[in-house]
């Protein structure tokens, strides 16, 4: 059964104010277009769990109440996004800090359907003092102390990938960060993809599927959906303008140009080409594509 819909539908049907949201694509293939649509729809009071991924924009637009993270600027003095959240939207963001692996473990516990996972990390650190989701217990087998990280089950997860089929059978390659555990822990699942492929492509390489169709609520075809973040096999990091959006003027310009001044991501991409030349997106595409050696199946 096809799950294909527009980005507008995918977000409005599946993301609600107050949701606990997982954002995939830490460092690789961030779902930038989907994030932009959440901003466009001004869905607020979100709690976000992610590794390094696009939370700054959501924060600065006042849509985030709480962040579960291993790495973020939590100090208003040093973050324009936090200042803006407070000044423009009257939102104070709270943070629960883990080490990166703690975020992975919380999501992994959610994916497995257990209330926590044990770890030999985090223990003895002061993170435990300020994050009640990290505890230490007596190990039932060894007698020593063992850390435990509480499960996180996001209401909705978003992942951008290279290919999936209309039913939502989803394949991503390259580094996966916390994508596997994050998307599999999520109750509702939105997949945005560079390309919707025939199911036959998926089914000739089923080991690459990271979540099966029956777990997926929405499939959106969105080329350059991770731009300006790199996506293996597709495009490199986007050029120009880094360091902008650190003040009110540049931030508001960006939000207007990329989100509220356009109806969708495709119009934004078209505007990028108008501004920067028709070859703007072409230029960041990979230049020397390499193919994997096919694996064989059959009877």
């Amino acid at each position: 059964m096809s799950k294909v819909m527009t980005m507008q539908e995918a977000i409005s049907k599946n993301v609600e104010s107050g949701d606990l949201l997982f954002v995939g694509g830490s460092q690789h293939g961030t779902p930038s277009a989907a994030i932009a649509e959440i901003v466009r729809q001004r869905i607020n009071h979100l709690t976000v769990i992610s590794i390094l991924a696009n939370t700054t924009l959501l924060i600065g637009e006042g849509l985030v109440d709480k962040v579960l993270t291993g790495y973020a600027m939590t100090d208003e003095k040093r973050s324009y996004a936090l200042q803006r959240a407070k000044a423009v939207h009257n939102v104070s963001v709270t943070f629960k800090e883990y080490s990166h692996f703690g975020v992975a473990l919380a999501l992994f516990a959610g994916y497995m359907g257990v209330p926590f996972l044990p770890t030999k990390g985090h223990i003895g650190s002061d993170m435990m003092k300020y994050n009640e989701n990290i505890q230490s217990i007596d190990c039932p087998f060894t007698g020593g102390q063992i850390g435990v990280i509480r499960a996180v089950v996001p209401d909705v997860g978003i992942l951008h990938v290279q290919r999936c089929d209309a039913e939502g059978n989803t394949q991503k390659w390259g580094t996966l960060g916390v994508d596997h555990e994050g998307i599999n822990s999520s109750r509702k699942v939105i997949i945005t993809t560079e390309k919707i492929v025939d199911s036959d492509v998926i089914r000739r390489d089923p080991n690459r599927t990271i979540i099966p169709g029956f777990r997926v609520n929405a499939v959106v075809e969105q080329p350059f959906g991770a731009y300006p973040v790199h996506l293996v096999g597709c495009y490199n990091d986007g050029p120009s303008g880094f360091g902008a959006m650190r003040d009110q003027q540049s931030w508001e310009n960006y939000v207007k140009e990329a989100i509220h001044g356009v109806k969708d991501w495709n119009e934004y991409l078209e505007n990028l080409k108008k501004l920067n030349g028709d070859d703007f997106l072409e230029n960041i595409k990979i230049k020397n594509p390499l193919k994997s050696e096919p694996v064989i199946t059959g009877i």
Partner: protein
Amino acid sequence: MAQIKDTAEYSGIDQMIISASRQIKDTDAVYVGVGFPLEASILAKNLQAPNCTVILENGIVRASLFRLPWTTDTMESQLFAEQLTGLFYVNSLAQAGHLALGVMGAGNIDRYGNVNDTAVGDYNKPIHRWMGSGGANDVMSFCRKTIIIMEQNKRRFPEKVDFVTCPGYFDGEPEAREKVGLPPNTGPVAVITDLATYTFEDGEMTLESVHAGCGITLEKVKAALGWDIKVAKDLMDTEPPTEEEMRTYREKIVAARRVMPPRPMPSIPTPSR
């Protein structure tokens, strides 16, 4: 950023990266953070450790040589890796004791090797904030040996950190790591700065060598520390870079350093450490 002015043909930073790279053995699997640690590991792969496996937290397991990338997760650092996976897998490798060595940076480090990457002053009203642990707690909790590379000044080397992001040896009590449940036989083994190198003796940071070759003196080192450092009985001058080391360092590291490519969005993932 304190840049060492010296008369030699190499700086304290150069010495720091080269000294750190020497710690990596050809047979090691090394968990590597962004920045100086990445530079040190790429240098090692070009010198004495061509076969070492470099582990990058976002899911890269890489034995083959690669050009210094501008951060850990790039198209280039991924391309032709032996294994691409996720954060869970590489940290499981570490937690299960399969990684001989971790190399990381730090915000502050104290007398007993405890690292603060979180907050100076009160956690809720900090005088200074960093971005938090990233993968640092994972590296230092799990790797059999951890090496910290960082530029040295008195502020970054307090006697006791305000916030323990990554436990070192706590207050130096024997078995303190094991008591809280950290894996046995782990912890920081060396701190390498732009002024000196340190080891840990009975859990206490101990001055091992001074970068005399680029004009550093014992006094200068002591002035850039927040406590009266224990000094090794056989305190040495740091072994200066060899010609081969310097040539390789210039070619493979200095020439390959790139700034982060400019990007149009404010919300770019900041490279982790």
